[in-house]
């Protein structure tokens, strides 16, 4: 029996978790609601100390420059720009390609750029977004062809195609990306990749990052998610584009001074955490298989480090979430009562997965299977991030 180590006084919701949040005194919470939860380790602060301490606004910090050059190379590009967040690198990546309205971007309807960047595209680039719901799991040339805007009288012509890889934890096939890249070049579109979790795709498929990266004009890769650094994302492209992006970064207020410490940690994480990604993915599979055995369903294929778990008919979501938190200090996103996005990362060990499965198994056994909520299927479009069912 698991004794309750930390009682959560309120129904768990991500924003109001101050009462349950990490404190030095109480036991650690295993946050599997997102891989942004990766916390910096003591070793990382030691690494920070050794970094250079020059001013990055003037491009004079050697540790930062070295990280940028390293990541650029990994992705098959000339240059990179280290920024505070993925929203910033995505918006910069699009902004540099969007020179003058009327212009627009074509992207997957479920993409982060479309849904979670506070309307950044319209704001930063004065561009509308053509949101395409792909027929399959990811955008294809066929989808794009049907939705590009070529009207130069009344329309905002498509200038950039934006793809996301991984999207909702699922991998965009490199061959399809090649076709899209070819199509884009033939028709004069620029190609941006939101590769916040591109590392996951590369690890899962054993395909080098550059194989994906070199197909795109601009790529945004996050280091604060599965890669484990506390802060940061990089925009990758050619020298001229990055030079322009640096200027725009200042405009967005992203010109930070002694960023060497943060860059050193990012580098450290690429070296030490990134190689563990495949293990995390295997662990995710194991967790999924365990939950599947208990009768739960997944809304999307489990291909990397995410599981979109549907608990209907098995156990009410909030009950499950409360139990996991109370008996295992495991935090899941319970904002929707039908499905949840579970995201593993390197700080979620095998023990945590075992614990989670044990608690769940016991809970289901004790509570008994609940009858189905009703005949209607789950309307997944409300779930964060919207994991719409494949049509």
């Amino acid at each position, binding site marked *: 029996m698991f004794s309750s180590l930390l009682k959560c006084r309120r129904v768990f919701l991500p924003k109001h*978790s101050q009462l349950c949040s990490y404190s030095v005194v109480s036991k650690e919470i295993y946050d599997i609601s997102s891989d*942004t939860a990766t916390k910096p380790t003591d070793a990382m*602060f030691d690494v*920070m100390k050794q970094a250079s301490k020059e001013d990055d606004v003037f491009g004079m910090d050697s540790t930062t420059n070295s990280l940028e050059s390293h990541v650029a190379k990994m992705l098959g590009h000339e240059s990179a720009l280290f920024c*505070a967040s993925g929203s910033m690198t995505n918006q910069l990546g699009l902004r540099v390609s969007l020179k003058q309205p009327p212009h627009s971007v074509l992207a997957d309807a479920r993409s982060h750029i479309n849904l979670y960047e506070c309307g950044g595209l319209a704001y930063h680039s004065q561009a509308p977004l053509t949101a395409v719901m792909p027929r399959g799991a990811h955008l294809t040339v066929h989808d794009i062809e049907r939705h590009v805007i070529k009207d130069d009288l009344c329309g905002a012509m498509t200038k950039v195609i934006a793809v996301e890889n991984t999207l909702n934890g699922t991998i965009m096939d490199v061959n399809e990306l090649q076709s899209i890249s070819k199509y884009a070049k033939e028709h004069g579109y620029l190609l941006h990749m939101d590769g916040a979790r591109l590392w996951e795709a590369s690890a899962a498929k054993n395909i080098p990052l550059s194989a994906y990266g070199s197909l795109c004009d601009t790529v945004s890769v996050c280091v604060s998610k599965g890669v484990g650094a506390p802060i940061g994302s990089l925009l990758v492209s050619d020298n001229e584009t990055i030079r322009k992006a640096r200027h725009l970064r200042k*405009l*967005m*207020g992203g010109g930070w*001074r*002694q960023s060497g410490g943060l860059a050193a940690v990012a580098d450290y994480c690429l070296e030490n955490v990134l190689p563990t990604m495949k293990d995390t993915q295997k662990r995710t599979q194991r967790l999924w298989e365990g939950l599947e055995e208990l009768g739960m369903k997944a809304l999307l294929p489990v291909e990397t480090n995410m599981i979109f778990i549907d608990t209907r008919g098995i156990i009410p979501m909030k009950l499950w979430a409360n139990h996991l938190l109370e008996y295992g200090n495991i935090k899941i996103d319970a904002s929707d009562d039908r499905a949840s996005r579970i995201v593993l990362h390197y700080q979620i060990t095998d023990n945590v997965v075992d614990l989670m499965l044990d608690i769940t198994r016991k809970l289901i056994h004790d509570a008994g299977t609940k009858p189905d909520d009703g005949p209607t299927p789950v309307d997944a479009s409300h779930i964060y991030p919207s994991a719409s069912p494949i049509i």
Partner: protein
Amino acid sequence: MMMLRTATVSARRCFTSSASRPLYIHNNLQNDQSHHLPNGDPDAKWYDLRSDTVTAPTDEMFEVMKNATRNDSVFEEDASVHELERHVAELCGHEASLFCASGTMTNQLGLRVHLTQPPHSVVCDSRSHVHLWEAGGIAFHSRASVSPVIARNGTHVTASEIEGNLIERDLHTAPTRVVSLENTLSGMVLPIKEIQAISDMARDRGLAMHLDGARLWNAHVASGVPMHDYGKCFDSMSLCLSKGVGAPIGSILVGNRDFIDRARHFRKLFGGGWRQAGSIAAAAKFCIDTVVPTMAETHALTRSLADQLVDMGIDLQCPSHTNMVLIDTARAGVSVQDDLIPALLRKNIKIGGMGSKSRIVLHHQIDQECVDAMIQVFRDVVSQHNTQRFQQEEKPVAVAL
């Protein structure tokens, strides 16, 4: 009553922007952060006086950073970030604050929240950072125009100058919505009495008051005015932590709760939503506690430097009130660019500058030893040129200030 005021104010509009005289900024544009290869002693200590942004994190700061909390501040879950934000808000007599990556971000966020719908405009000193050094941010982020005001006394704008540049609502205009002040500006202190007068005038007209207080800490230390007295005069304040305060990264926006909530949303839009920022916040708090108290000493060193330079016949572009000395060496017959910068580099001292002008900025990592060494170099260079000039009977270049 409104109509009458419109007529009066319009008649007094000064249109001062066209005659704006470039200050140190334009002179230092290319060379302020020079990329000269240092040719001094590589093992000896380096002193960097090009800006107070160069303040480097210390070993002690990294220990503090290690002990900070490590939660996600996008979801407002990090205690170290809360601690910093609470502390600064309280210090300034405001309800809340928002910790961001840069002063440009906090300034632009502050203005953005006030500027709700065009047509609208901002009135500010013509030399303001928000107007000149934020990549056109006001136009970009807020779709607002700027009315730049020339400070006729050369030090700070006055209430009557600001009033004279206000734009009223009219079919043709982008009416003034925000008064944005900067303190310190080029190291010069804006007197509290003037700020209060401007604030009263602005609030009387329903205008918002924003402060670019990147170096407000210096003004506070130099003038003795408590931070919350400044706080009373403004609806929003942007305070830098990465300059004289000494933290590696960061700036903080202060305002009331609703204002900061809105600013937080905009911050995400700007791409400023950073994750485990606790360590950076902890470093900033540590610096506020340990470095700000040393500012008086830095100011004293600056005063000493300024006095000694003036004694040598070097002119000041503007009064030196806090941690900056803006010099013009033309009358002394030497070039900053060709004579002083290389000579100082040989002594492991970096300054910026172009032609005969330079902005020398002191901070807590500049000590007496550095100032003494600088004075020696200046003396040597100036006396060398005096000798040459005596020999060549060269006419000194006249300087209009």
